[in-house]
Structure formats: C-alpha cells, structure tokens
C-alpha cells in the first residue's frame, strides 16, 4: 500500500515538474549537444559519450543520484563529453536492458549503485569495447583472490566510516549534553553500519565517555527506511527527549524528518539542538527554515568518483577493479556550509591527517 502511495506521489510530482519543466528540458538538450557548444576549442572528451545509469529515484533525489548527476555535469563542462542518463523502472526489473542500451552508444557506462553489479558483469562481457564503472561495489571476484571481474569493469567505493568519523568528532566537540544520536535508514546489510561505526569512533576519540544512541528505521530487505521521514522524525524527537543534542542520519530521504524534528525540538524547548546530514551538503538542499539546524554533513563525493573515472577513461588510465575514495583523495569529507563548525575545523583537520597517515584506523563495524 505504501508503495502505491509513493507511486501516486511520484505521479503528482511528475505533473508538477511537467508544468514547470521548460528549463529542465532545455538542460537535457544542452546535454546532448554539449560537445558542439564548446565552439572551436577542442576538448579531450569531444565525441565521447558517457552513459550514466542512475538507480531508482534518478536525477533530482537530492542525494546519491544527484551527486552523480553533479559529477557528470562537471565532466561535461570540464572535458566536453556528452552523456545520456537513464533510470530503471520502479520495481527495478530492467537494469540489464538499460545497461545494454547505454553500452550501445557509450564508451563509458557509469552505474550508480551496487544493485547494478551483476548486470554490469553480463553487459561488460557482451561489450568488450565499453568500460563500466559501478558505484558502491568493489566489483572484485572475491572467490578467486579478489581480482577484477574483467578488464573493463571498475568498482568505485567510499570510505564512509572515515567521513563519519569526522562528523562524529564534530558532534562530540559541539555536544553540551554528552549524548548524541545516530539514525540509520536500513540496518542489517552492512553498509549503514559503517556510518555508525565511524561516527561512534570519532565521537569517542574526542570524549571517551560520550553516550551514542543508535537506531535503525527498518531492517533489510525492507528498504522503506530510506523513504520514511515521518518515522525518522519520531525517532529523532525521542532521542532529543533522551537528552541527545546532536543527531547524525544515514537514512537517505528520511533525513528530512530529522531536520524537521531538530527545528521542532529547538523551538519547543528553547535550547538549540542539531542535526548532521549525509552524502551531499544538505545545508544546500534543504529548505531555508531548517538550514540553521544542520551542523555539518558527511560528504560522500559520488561526483568526485564520476569525474575521476571519466578523466581516467579519457586519458587511457581506466583501472579495472576496486578504487576506494577516502579522505586522502577527498572522496569523503565534511561540509562547512553555515559556518557552524568553523571554530573546530583545526581539530577536525588534525583527525583527518591522522586518518590519512594511518595513525587512526577507523573501524567499519560497530
């Protein structure tokens, strides 16, 4: 039932978009003509097409997919490539066909999300001339000594625990109550636990006595936890009620509920509480009235990965197998928009250097 409501909402959203979309469509036209617009200047990406394949949600999700979209837009203007973008059916049943069609007309296919992993292996076998990159999956054959599946398959992953460590440290430095919270979207499949582990470790590095309250909205395979702003709001209000004054979320679209709760709690109790965003710089994606409650965001730079892999492809440096985007290449990080963490940046930078140098090893399991 919930799903069909979501469908309905999506439909309404589409109508709303359609009504106001003239700007939108001209943008996509630009995309296909990007190569010609650069005039006389020859660019390295002229004539190269990249097939960006989103996961469900596509461009405009203000999170993961949008970050990839930002990367491809930058690659377009920096290198002069053209690109085609596509997303699967809502039930995710046509990933394989999408990849195949993309491969027909692209030199590089970037698939956003680990659910593409298996279909990429099949498509890469049929299209030896096309390079494939999957975001969030290592794309290694672990049964045979962790070798790449094929010469034209790369896996781009992120050291989420390192970025989470830094925002955990920021939370501990800023907390007045000595209690902080963590809201995970979906537990039980390993990915979100990485965020929790890093966050807790970062907080404890600052204050060994800090209390961290973790809670997950749903357990896999129920992925509604990434779309349940109402439940995130309830959980956040409970945590604030338990004396937490800063809550970090790794819950996709549910984060909106956390931001709302931070505002509500601050207004009703009179003492300011904070929220920490995830994936993109959420200070810039939320509405203005909740901006002032976003302390910082843990940045997962999918855009960096997209630009880098495009760059590597254009320069003939495409590397099969796993590339981890960690602090050392700014693949993860924290945001400073709003200026709320400006006073603790030196401490955070110090932690960052210690992690890069290997003096601090951030755990990946709580």
């Amino acid at each position: 039932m919930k799903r069909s409501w979501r469908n309905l909402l999506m439909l309404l959203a589409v109508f709303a978009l359609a009504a106001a979309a003239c700007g939108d469509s001209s943008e996509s036209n630009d995309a296909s003509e990007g190569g010609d617009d650069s005039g006389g200047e020859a660019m390295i990406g002229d004539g190269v097409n990249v097939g960006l394949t989103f996961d469900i949600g596509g461009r405009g999700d203000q999170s993961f997919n949008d970050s990839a979209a930002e990367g491809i837009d930058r690659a377009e203007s920096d290198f002069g490539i053209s690109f085609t973008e596509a997303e699967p059916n809502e039930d995710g049943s046509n990933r394989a066909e999408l990849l195949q069609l993309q491969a027909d007309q692209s030199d590089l296919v970037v698939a956003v999300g680990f659910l593409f992993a298996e279909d990429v292996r099949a498509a890469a076998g049929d299209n030896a001339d096309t390079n494939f990159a999957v975001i969030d999956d290592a794309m290694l054959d672990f049964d045979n000594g962790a070798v790449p599946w094929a010469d034209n398959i790369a896996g781009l992953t992120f050291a989420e625990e390192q970025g989470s460590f830094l925002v955990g440290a920021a939370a501990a430095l800023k907390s007045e109550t000595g209690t902080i919270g963590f809201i995970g979207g979906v537990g039980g499949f390993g990915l979100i636990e990485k965020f929790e582990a890093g966050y807790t470790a970062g907080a404890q590095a600052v204050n060994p006595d800090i209390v961290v309250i973790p809670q997950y909205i749903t357990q896999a395979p129920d992925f509604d936890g990434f779309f349940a702003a109402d439940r995130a709001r309830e959980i956040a209000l409970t945590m604030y009620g338990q004396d937490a004054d800063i809550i970090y979320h790794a819950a996709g679209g549910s984060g909106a509920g956390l931001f709302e709760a931070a505002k509500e709690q601050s207004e009703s109790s009179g003492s300011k509480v904070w929220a920490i965003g995830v994936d993109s710089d959420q200070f810039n994606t939320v509405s203005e009235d909740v901006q002032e409650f976003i302390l910082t965001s843990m940045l997962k730079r999918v855009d960096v990965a997209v630009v880098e892999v495009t760059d590597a492809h254009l320069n003939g440096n495409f590397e099969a197998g796993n590339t981890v985007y960690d602090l050392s290449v700014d693949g993860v990080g924290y945001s400073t928009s709003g200026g709320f963490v400006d006073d603790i940046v030196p401490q955070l930078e110090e932690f960052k250097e210690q992690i890069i140098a290997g003096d601090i090893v951030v755990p990946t399991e709580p």
Partner: protein
Amino acid sequence: MTNPLVRRIGLALAAPALAAVFAVVVSAIVLELSGSNSIDTFGTILSNGFQLETFVDTLNRATPLFLAGVAAAIGFRMNLFNIGVEGQYILAAFAAAVVGAELNRFALPGFLHTLAIVATAMFVGAVWAGLSGLLKVTRGINEVISTIMLNFVATGGIVAALLPKVITDPTAPNQGTETIAERAWLPDLNGVAEVVTREIGRGRELTGVFLIAVVVAIAYHVGVNRTVFGFDLRSSGMNPFAAFAGGVQPKKMVFLSMVLSGVVAGLVGMPEILSDNHAYDQGFVQGLGFGGIAIALLGRNSALGMTFAALLFGFLDSSSAVLQVQASASAEIVRIMQATFLLAAVVAFEFVNRIRQRDEVARASAATETPNGPTPSIEGASA
C-alpha cells in the same frame, strides 16, 4: 439498423480503444509540456516494439504481472479484496529461494529440485493468504485490513528477520541467499520460440515460467467458467445471499478462494527464482503484487482481458529503457501512460456498459412488443 452482432463486438472493442486513445493523448500532452517531441517518442516506442528482443522482454515482464493479476482476480470474483498479493509472493519467493538453496546439498534430480521450489512457493503463498481467509471466516476481520497488515509482517518482519540468517556473504553489498544449483533452473524457451522466429539475441531469455502462466490462464478460465466451484465463486460474488440460499457455504468459499489466490500469488516470484536471478537478494523485484491489482482491474478479471492487460503493461515497461536512452524522455512517461490507461479503462468500461444496458432494454422491449397490440409500457427501462 446495424447488425446486432457487429454492434456487440464493436462495443466490446470500444472500451479498450477509447482508453488507449485517452492514454495516448494525455501522454502526448505531458510529453509536449515537458519539452519532448511526442511524435518522436511514440515513434521510438513503436520501432522498439517491433523488435524480437522487445517481444521477449514484454513476455518476460507480462508473465509475473499476469500471475499477480490472476491471484488478485480470484478474490475479486467473489468481492474479496486480496491486497496482500505483494506480501504473499515476496514471502513465497523468499521461502522458495531458501529451500532451493538448502536442497543444493542433496543429490536429487533437477526436476524434483524445481518441483520442490515451486511447491514451496505455492504452499507459502497459500498459507499466507489463507491466514487472512481464516481471520475473516472465524473472526470477521476484513480481508483488506488483514492482507495489508500481513504485507508488512511478511516483508518488514519475517523476510527482514530471516534474511540475515541465510545470506551467503555478509560483506557483499548485495546480500542474498545462496544461488540455486543449475539443475533446478527452468530452461528458457528461446529454442521453442526460435522455431518460428529468428535467433533471439542480446542475451534475452524467454522465461520458462511463461508456460506455467499459460497453464494458470487456462485453469483459471475453465475453473471460473466451467466448474461448480467457479459457479459458486461467481454467484457468491454477485449475490452472496442468493448463493447462500442456493446452498453455497460462504465461509468455505471465502477461505478456499483466499487459499487459491495465495497459491497463484506464490508463483509470481518464480521467474526471478527459476529463470533470472536464482536467488533472493536486495534486487528482488518488488511491487508486482500491486501491479497485479491493476492488471485485474484493467482486464476485468477475465483470463483474456488480463492477458492483454499484462502484455500492455509489460510492453510499456520494456519501452522505458529505450525511451530514456534513445529518445531522452523521462522514465515517468511510462508510468503516466500506465496510470492513464487504467483510469481511462475504468471510465470507458462504465460508459460502454451503460450503452450495452440500454441496448439490452431496447431489445427486451422489442421482443415483448406484440405485433398488433399497443406498445407495452417500458417502465422497466427507466428503473
């Protein structure tokens, strides 16, 4: 005066035709508003639609949609709203994947392995749907509520709690059950199809579950229209009191039709388990149960109607990829077409039904008209 037969056939075709025109017009408007060329877009849909590989895609997608439609329709036929096909098929597929993986360790012939998987799915689907039936006949709990609740219990509760216990590799991003041994996979039907077509390319495989769907279609049609059970089912749906007076036990019918609905629902996930992925993981196709409700509505609960509805939705689904990649239209256009088809069909069927009723009244009054007497009153017509 038109030939009544021609008129009847014309009316039967009018509703879907009206719906199609309406859906195309609405989609064209949305396309133009969003800055795409609607003619080009429909051209892409059509030219893609005439490729053999698209036929295969369409059939592959129509197969589970049709099965879900039948599962919903069995309930609809007797005014039972089984909203729980979603939870029933997901739970059934999960159980079937687990049993299938466990059986990897035993030496047994492939067809027994397959049979055990299918039987598990049908059994679990039946139990889960039967639970709602039982709640209704023993406690009078509305099946709409219980099936919705059991959807959550199935996906958010049982599968969520058990999946971590059966995953093979806890470090893999996409965790799922162990892949079922190849001996249990259903062979694809490419060889059969290629007797009449050219070779099917691009790695497409026509799922063997398609045959199961054909069997279900025939069984459903015959069962509903030609058996005592089917008669009881339909009469309970049309008028439960009259059926009761005629000796039909309503409680038994409610329970049995829920169980049957669940049996068919159990088959919905089989293309994924037996043909496509051979495991239950996070990419498992969801939403087919709700799709099935749309198919049953669009196909008016008839085997033939649902076949067309499933093929239509399957075709539109398989157009989504090519629309985005080649015509740079958004994926949502396919959703809009499906939704407007559904909406338009409901309205058009009602409209055509009215015309049909008026025809019938006119015919009845013509038949009762005596050649030389005065025209009998047609009060009945206005009632």
